[in-house]
């Protein structure tokens, strides 16, 4: 368990080689660029380029989405685990030459998408007009006919259902003496009545006025063709638009072989954006550029040599100053490394803090297994994660870490399952009793240690014991950190005193009636030790009172702060009680698993019973495993984050994020 030690690297070089050096650094995946304090002159220009690169990536992404919509790639369920296609750095360079074609392809695809949208809009418009024509189909004159020699022609529709009589009545009532007209009602429905009215020009304004008051509206489509002709035209227009859309879609489908090129365009644009983002953080003169950053110390010399051999650059390495905020990378063995992501998501070790991963990993697997504690589920996790790890060696680092972590959690779950006698709950016993005629009172699969449901208090006491152990290790780590920084007084005041007080209190508690009532039997402690325990606790309490805030000049304030620290004993109590979740979650898995088993065995033996048993067993245990896996994961994290880290760890470190080619999605540049 350790934090990788870093060296500061300063690179100065010629402006012409800036891009090449950045590409080289990106490919080496080692250089963590630190931000320059002063604004650089080139920033606006670089930012513009950066925007362009990001737009290009967006373009490629959109084109790929389009392609996936019309010509889905055949990928399978585990596509995300496969990792990118390998490409050597040279092959990468060569492939980059065809980028302009890929960009043109992306543009043309998006152009086609636009075309599809337009064609669809055209077809929809024609459809709307066609529907608007329906009431006028019986009319045999152009829809825009407005007059003959002496007459005015009014074409339009009135809302609601009208008959010829009712309309004539309405006209007679509205315009007394108006009788020289010709009225023709077309076929309407309950919502509107289309009609044609022919009247003398001099009567027209008054008639029109009356009709308008009743809601008279002209047709949507006014053309110089008869409705039948107009309908034919529109149908042709619509068909043409549909065909156009189909042709464009076919053209997009035909571009499917260009998928690889688009994926490469996306990846390369991402890499370029990464380099440009780095560039925005560097300083440059008119002829030179300057980079400052961090490199893991053990590889710094090699990188310096590679750079100086290949380019006209000056590389200098300096040790980081103690107060400098150096980026943090964790380095752990294969057993602990998978839990690094757990630490990372809380926060990386800050100044003066140790990397807790190694010790945390042991507790992580231990507590996780205790909470899930079923040999069957453990076995499934081992097999599942093991298979995925073996089959997809190239999956991303974070996925791999997670899979490995659950693999080890599975091992622990399996072992705890054996200790507590759980294999898919009490499946072995239930199957033996139901299908193989073993008498009910014979227990086939016995726990190696004890069954939690029979002795819950025993497990509760052990849960607290594991909790105290976990918390003490946390406090010990705090002590180690303080001693490493040579803060001896702090160590005495806030670590040693706590140890004395807590150990004293625990020794006093063990022989008491209170403990006996919980555990069932008191633990006898010899009299001298009991007196010693009282003295220990007293020394601890006084130590906290006097030294927890030893650096305060005001003695009253010092005592008050000491008393406050002493009050923290309530926090210790609730921290230890918090470990009771180990019992609760452990019981939950076992009890619900047995419920599933007894439900499954309700149908008795025989073939029918066996089939129903298998169905209920599979569904039930899948559900139980999923929900308890979630519970164990969440609560293991909680015990680490709140109880364990709370004792010693703040995690304010900045992550080591080197300039890298691993941000790609489809291709993977081979490491050199």
């Amino acid at each position, binding site marked *: 368990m350790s934090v990788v030690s870093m060296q500061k690297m300063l690179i100065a070089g010629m402006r012409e080689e800036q891009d090449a050096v950045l590409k080289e650094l990106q490919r080496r995946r080692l250089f963590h660029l630190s931000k320059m304090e002063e604004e650089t002159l080139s920033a606006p220009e670089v930012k513009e380029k950066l925007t362009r690169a990001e737009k290009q990536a967006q373009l490629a992404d959109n084109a790929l989405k389009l392609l996936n919509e019309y010509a889905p790639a055949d990928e399978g369920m585990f596509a995300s685990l496969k990792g990118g296609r390998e490409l050597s750095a040279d092959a990468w360079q060569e492939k980059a030459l065809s980028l302009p074609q890929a960009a043109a392809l992306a543009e043309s695809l998006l152009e086609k998408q636009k075309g599809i949208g337009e064609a669809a809009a055209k077809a929809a418009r024609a459809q709307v007009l066609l529907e608007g024509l329906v009431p006028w189909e019986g009319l045999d004159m152009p829809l825009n006919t407005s007059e003959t020699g002496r007459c005015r022609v009014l074409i339009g529709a009135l809302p609601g259902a009208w008959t010829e009589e009712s309309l004539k009545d309405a006209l007679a009532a509205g315009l007394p003496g108006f009788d020289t007209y010709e009225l023709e009602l077309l076929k309407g429905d309950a919502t509107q009545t289309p009609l044609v009215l022919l009247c003398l020009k001099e009567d027209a304004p008054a008639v029109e006025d009356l009709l308008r008051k009743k809601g008279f509206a002209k047709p949507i489509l006014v053309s110089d063709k008869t409705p039948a002709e107009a309908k034919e035209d529109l149908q042709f227009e619509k068909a043409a638009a549909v065909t156009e859309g189909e042709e464009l879609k076919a053209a997009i489908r035909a571009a499917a072989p260009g998928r690889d090129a688009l994926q490469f365009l996306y990846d390369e644009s991402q890499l370029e954006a990464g380099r440009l983002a780095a560039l925005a953080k560097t300083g440059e003169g008119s002829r030179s550029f300057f980079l400052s950053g961090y490199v893991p110390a053990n590889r710094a010399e090699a990188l310096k040599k590679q750079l100086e051999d290949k380019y006209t650059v000056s590389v200098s390495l300096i040790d980081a100053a103690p107060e400098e905020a150096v980026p943090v990378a964790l380095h752990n063995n294969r057993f602990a490394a998978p839990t690094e992501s*757990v630490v990372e*998501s*809380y926060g990386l070790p800050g100044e003066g803090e140790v990397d807790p991963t190694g010790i945390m990993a042991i507790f992580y697997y231990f507590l996780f297994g205790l909470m899930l504690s079923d040999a069957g589920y453990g076995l499934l996790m081992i097999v599942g994660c093991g298979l995925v790890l073996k089959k997809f060696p190239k999956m991303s680092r974070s996925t791999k870490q997670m899979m490995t972590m659950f693999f080890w959690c599975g091992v622990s779950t399996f072992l705890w399952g054996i200790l507590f006698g759980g294999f898919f709950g009490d499946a072995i016993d239930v199957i033996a009793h139901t299908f193989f005629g073993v008498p009910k009172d014979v227990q086939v699969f016995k726990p190696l240690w004890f069954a939690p*449901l029979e002795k*819950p*208090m025993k497990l*509760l006491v052990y849960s607290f014991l594991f909790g105290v152990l976990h918390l003490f290790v946390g406090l010990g780590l705090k002590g180690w950190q303080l001693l490493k920084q040579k803060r001896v007084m702090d160590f005495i005041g806030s670590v040693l005193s706590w140890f004395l007080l807590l150990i004293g209190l625990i020794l006093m508690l063990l022989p008491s009636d209170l403990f006996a009532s919980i555990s069932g039997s008191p633990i006898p402690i010899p009299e001298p030790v009991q007196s010693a325990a009282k003295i220990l606790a007293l020394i601890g309490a006084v130590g906290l009172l006097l030294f927890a805030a030893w650096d305060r000049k005001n003695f009253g304030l010092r005592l008050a702060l000491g008393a406050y620290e002493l009050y923290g004993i309530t926090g210790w109590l609730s921290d230890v*009680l*918090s470990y*009771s*979740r180990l*019992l*609760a979650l452990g*019981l*939950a898995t076992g*009890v*619900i698993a047995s*419920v599933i088993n*007894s439900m499954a065995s309700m149908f008795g033996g025989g073939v029918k019973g066996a089939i129903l048993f298998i169905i209920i067993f599979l569904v039930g245990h899948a559900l139980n495993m999923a*929900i308890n896996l*979630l*519970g164990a*994961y*969440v*609560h293991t*994290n*909680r015990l680490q*984050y*709140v109880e364990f880290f709370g004792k010693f760890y703040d995690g304010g470190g900045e992550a080591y994020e080197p300039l890298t080619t691993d941000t790609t999605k489809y291709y993977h540049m081979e490491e050199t």
Partner: protein
Amino acid sequence: MGNLLSLALTTGAPAAAEAAPALLNDQLGIVYALLGVALATLLAGIGSAIGVGMGGRAAAGVLTEKPELFAKVLILQLLPGTQGIYGLLVAFVALGKIGVLGGEAPDARTGLLYLAACLPIAFVGLLSAIHQGKTSVASIGLLAKNPKTFGKAMLLPAMVETYAILALLVSILTVSNL
């Protein structure tokens, strides 16, 4: 007929008055105990359903924009689901002791004790699941804005659960030791 009835009433009454408490004592025990079982399952289950429901609605909203967060928001959605399981757990342990799935029917006093033992997980389960659901909703929002904060987003709702676990402990220890 009327005479017979009055005869039966007059002769039967003293005996029934004596038998009634014994009868109640024998037969009401299981009723009380089952009431406790029902409350544990009902209230904790209702709480979880509300909590998971709230989480699910928030999660669906996030997924429209960021489908890649599915696994993470699902975990956050499911966090308030455990209270229902705890209620079920207490209920099953109790059922196994009161003569439904095993054991034998309790007398009235023990039945009431079972009822009392079930109350912590029933009520704490109901309320903590609802509040955990609300915290999950907030955490899902946090995750949507910054997917890197998953660890912290998960921790906030998990803090609420502590109290459900404490209630579960008291319930289950009491039920299994009665």
